[in-house]
Structure formats: structure tokens, C-alpha cells
């Protein structure tokens, strides 16, 4: 049985190998000084040895996963909530520069608050308005932080 643990270990093994190949293209010793490749080569080799040994030991010692372990993926409802939040965050990042900080932040806070707590829609909008106003006042007006102004710029 392939566990998420093993897949991840195998992924790190491949990463270590690819990193080592790239590191080998850098000089280890150049012009009587230590080159840029020495440290990365040591790291790549260490990752290969570590993950290779752990995968081998796993097969030798156990063969297959026998321990009852928490599944890698959370329950379906939690997964949907997480995907919604990540989706909202990705949309926020996409909209931040074209729509500007004020509009995109207001929409992000409102949509996310309502999605997480559908029963309190009015308070969600109120919190969004308050947060945007506070952030604009403190960060943009007072601290002069470089936040995108969008169509209002």
C-alpha cells in the first residue's frame, strides 16, 4: 500500500536527485577558492541518502503500512471549506491590482465571511466596510504602504 508518507518521501528523493544534477553543473573549486557548487552538491547527496535510506528501511522493516494513521486528506466538508478559502484568496490576488485594494478587499472579506458564516450576512458586510476603512486609513494614508489603487488611482 502506498501511503502519502511514502509518496512524499519519493518526491523528496526525486527532488534531491534533480537538485544534485543541477548542482553538479556548478564549480566545486574555482580559482583557488571554494566554488558555488560544493554546498548544493552536499545537500543534494544528503537528501538522496536520507530519503533513499528511509524508503529502503520502510520496505525492509515493514513492507506495508499496518499502523492506523490519520488519512492525508481531511473530511470532505473541511476540504470544501479549505478549497473555498484558497479559491477566494486566489481570486483576491488576481483582482488586487486591476480592481484596486479597496474594492477587492471589500469583496474578499464580504464573500469569505458570508461563506464561512452564512447566517450573519449583515454583520459580514459591516465588518468588511470597517476593515477596509481601517486598513485604508492606517496602512495607506498613515503608513504610506504601496497598496494598489486600481481604478481610483
Amino acid at each position, binding site marked *: 500500500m502506498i*501511503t*502519502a*508518507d*511514502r509518496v*512524499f*518521501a519519493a518526491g*523528496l528523493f526525486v*527532488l*534531491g536527485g534533480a537538485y544534485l544534477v543541477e548542482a553538479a553543473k*556548478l564549480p566545486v573549486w*574555482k580559482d583557488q*577558492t*571554494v*566554488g*558555488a557548487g560544493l*554546498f*548544493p552538491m552536499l*545537500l*543534494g547527496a*544528503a*537528501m538522496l541518502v*536520507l*530519503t533513499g535510506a*528511509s524508503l529502503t528501511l*520502510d520496505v525492509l*522493516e*515493514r513492507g506495508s*503500512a*499496518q*499502523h492506523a494513521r490519520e488519512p*492525508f486528506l*481531511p473530511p470532505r466538508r*473541511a476540504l470544501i*471549506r*479549505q478549497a473555498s*478559502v*484558497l479559491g477566494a*484568496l486566489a481570486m*483576491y*490576488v488576481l483582482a*488586487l491590482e486591476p480592481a484596486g485594494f479597496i474594492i477587492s*478587499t471589500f469583496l*474578499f*472579506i464580504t464573500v*469569505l*465571511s458570508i461563506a*464561512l*458564516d452564512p447566517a*450573519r450576512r449583515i*454583520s*459580514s458586510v459591516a*465588518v*468588511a466596510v470597517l*476593515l477596509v476603512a481601517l486598513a485604508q486609513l492606517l*496602512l495607506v494614508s498613515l*503608513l504610506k*504602504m*504601496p*497598496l*494598489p489603487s486600481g481604478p481610483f488611482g
Partner: protein
Amino acid sequence: MDLTSGQQLLVGFSVALRPENLMFAFIGVLLGTMIGVLPGIGPAGAIAALLPFTFGMDPTTSLIMLAGIFYGGMYGGSTTSILLNVPGEAASVVTTLDGHQMARSGRAGAALAISAIGSFVAGTVGVVLLTVVAAPLAMLAIRFGPPEYFALTVLGVMAAAYLSSASMLKGLAMVILGLMLSTVGIDLITGGARFTYGVLEVYGGVELVPVLIGLFGISEILSMLQDPDTGSLLRRKIPLRELWPSGRDLRDSAGPIARGSFLGFGMGMLPSGGPFISSFLSYALEKKISKRPETFGKGAIEGVAGPESANNSATAGSMVPLLILGIPFNVVTAIMLGALIIQGLQPSPMLMTRQPEFFWGVVASMYIGNVMCLVLNLPLVGIWVKILQIPVAKMIPMILLFCVIGVYSINARLFDLWLMLGVGILGYALRRLRFPLAPLVLALVLGRIMENALRQSLLMGLGSPLIFIERPMAAAFIFGVLGILTFAVVSRLRRRGGGAPALSVT
């Protein structure tokens, strides 16, 4: 303390008492207490999210505020442990054992008060010890050359790998991953680009803040979303009558507070021995020497006083390697070092003499900050209880907003936000697989220091690695590394019969 240190400390107070430093110390301890009270995002995530807001500040003011968040978080962490049986941050996990039992038997006020008093006493003892040991340790550290720095950084990350997870292999994998990330960008010695693949945004190295916020902010939010309940954490009224502990409570707590103060400070100075481990060791110690060990876990006040003192003292202890050696031994001080480096300040043994206002200003601010924490946590505990009534559904968007603003404001580029998002998902996967995140961050921050020290050492040794065992202090650190490895292998062999999953020795 010699006269010089005393005089320097007075200079430090003149810096710490400047209005802007007082204000940011207060903001730091206030935010720290709030973050400590709220379960979920811990001091590491909070400091990471707030880092960009400090870049425009003077480095002294910046570190005063960040340190305030660190020890303020230790104060606040006990509140939810005691009232809700949910630790506000990792170092308060052990406080749930007896603190919540005290609350259930109507003694929440006494538990909160002893926790605040113990934190204050230990925090102050910790800063006094920091004041006393700073000068002698700096004198010792001046002898450190590249071989010692390399060996010490290796010892630091190895200890983190060993102590931060039940699986040494997982910890080591995270260390190597962090070191690999640290090699991305322009090589400072040869000027050549490494592992950049034409991505202009990483030529200066992988930006630290998006990685930190992704690992500790976004992944933490994803973990919080596993819980279907998004209502407020506090659903019942907590009686806080009798806030002052009885005479017997104070007598029973005096010993644990004293022991916790010294134990915490000592542990804080060691590689990976921060507040979390200090609190557990203190609890184990108090139970071991108690005349009534059977009361532990059933509401023994010693089980609150010792660990809460130890975790506060450890924050002062862990500032020693950061400020004197420039090498952080836990994740929070690693983030602080990242902040200082971004601001162009590299702590070293010479910091005390070259920039006494910075060093002693930060130390003095910790004395003042501890008094602020006591005021915030003892008479004002009712306010923190009210904060727990904010619904989680409202907190999550606010925290995410802070994360986005923090990351975007560094370079005003979307690349950093995508990096944060990607690292956040990776961090969540790592949490699910029980990979420790602290070694990854420590290695990422220490990577360049370690590589430069290695290359300089090999040049000094004309290419021979024997230089690491020819110099006594470097050799001692290398033997420490070998000791950790040997211990880990022996432990694994002893447990071999049970079997273990890939990348695990659990």
C-alpha cells in the same frame, strides 16, 4: 553584573523609554497577548505577518516590538489553556493539564493570576540573567571563527531536527529542504546565479516573508478550517471571581516559579530549547520532585506555575544566541534575525560594543515590557476573555487580509502572493504528514550563514575538512552533532520492533 554592563543598561533604558519605543513595546506586548490568547495563529505566524510593517522602523524599535510579541504571546497563551482547555500557543500546551482542571473546580482566577505572576517573575529573572551573561558570552563568542560558526549552525539545525518532531528523519528532510531553498539566487561570493531558471523574482534569493507567512499563516488557517465549528470559542460565562490567589497558592508556587525561571533561561539558550520544551521540562521536574505527584493533572497549582514561568524565561534565554552570536535557535528568533538582516543589521559578538544602543535598548525594553504584560494580563484578563467571543468565521478573513497586505507591501508584486499561497498549501501538507516546519525555517534563515562559514573554513584549512576538529570549540559542536545522531540511531534501533512508516521513526 559588572559596572560596565550596569552603565550600558542605563543607556539601554534611555533608548527603551523614548516615546516611540515605549509605544511599539506596548503595541508588541498587546498584539502578543492577543495572539497568545487566540488559539490558531501563534507568535511565529504573527511575527511573520507583521514583519513588513517593521521595515520602515528603526531596527531597535522593530526588534523591541517583535520581542514584545514573542514574550507577550507566552503571557497570553495560558489564558485559553486555563479557561478553554485549548492552548493559545504551543508553549502553553502543558498548562492545560492542571490549569483547566483548576478552572473546572472554580479556581480559574487563581490559575490565571499565578500564571501571570509566574510569567512576570520569570520574565524579569530571564532578562536579569540575559543582562548578566551577555558580556561574558560575547567575550567568548569573539573567538568564534568560520569553523565555529559552521559547526554551531549545523548543531542548531540538527537539534531542531531532533527535538521538533518525533521523527528525526522528517526533521532532517526539512532541514535539507530549507538549506536547498537558501541556495536559490545569486551566489554572494562568485556572483553567479544558482537555481533561478530565469525567474527574476528569485535572483535575490527566496523572499523570506512570503515563505514564513505561507508556512505559519496560511497553513495554520487551513488547519483551523478542519474544524467544522466556526462560531466563537467561548460559549459559556467564565466566573473570574477571586482573581487573587490565596497565601497557600503563593507559597506552593514560589518554588516552581523560581526553578522554572532558571530552567527556562538555560533551556532557551540551547539549540532548539525554546519555550515549548522548557515548559514540558519544567512540568516533568515539578512532578518529579513534588511530595504530591498524584495531584498533577488534577489541578495542581505547581503544574501551572512552573511551566508558565519556564516558557517566559526561555524567551529571554533564546535572545542570547540571537543577539550575541547572530544565530537563532528557535523559529521565532529565526524570523527576528530575518527581519534584522532585511534591515541591514547582522547581530554578532561585536554588536554590544559597536551598537550598544541597539543591544541594551532591546534588553531594557524587555524589563519594561514585562511590567506591561503583567498589567495587561492580570487586571485586564476580562478583556481577553471577551476577545474569545469573536467568531472564528470573522477572524479568518481578518488574518488572511493581514497576510496579503504584509506580503504585498514588501515589493508590491503579485509573485510574492502566489509564493505565499503555494508555500501555504505545501505547509499544510507537511503538517498533515507530521513534518516539522521549524527546522525548515531555521535552515532557510541559517543557510547562507552556514554556507559562507563552510566555504571560508575550507579556504582557511586549504581545502581540508579537518579544520572542524582541529579547533576545540568547533570540535565540541561537531561532537554535539554526532551525539545527537548517535542518540537518534540508538533510539530507533530500540524501537525497531514496532516498525515505522517512510521518513518516520515514530
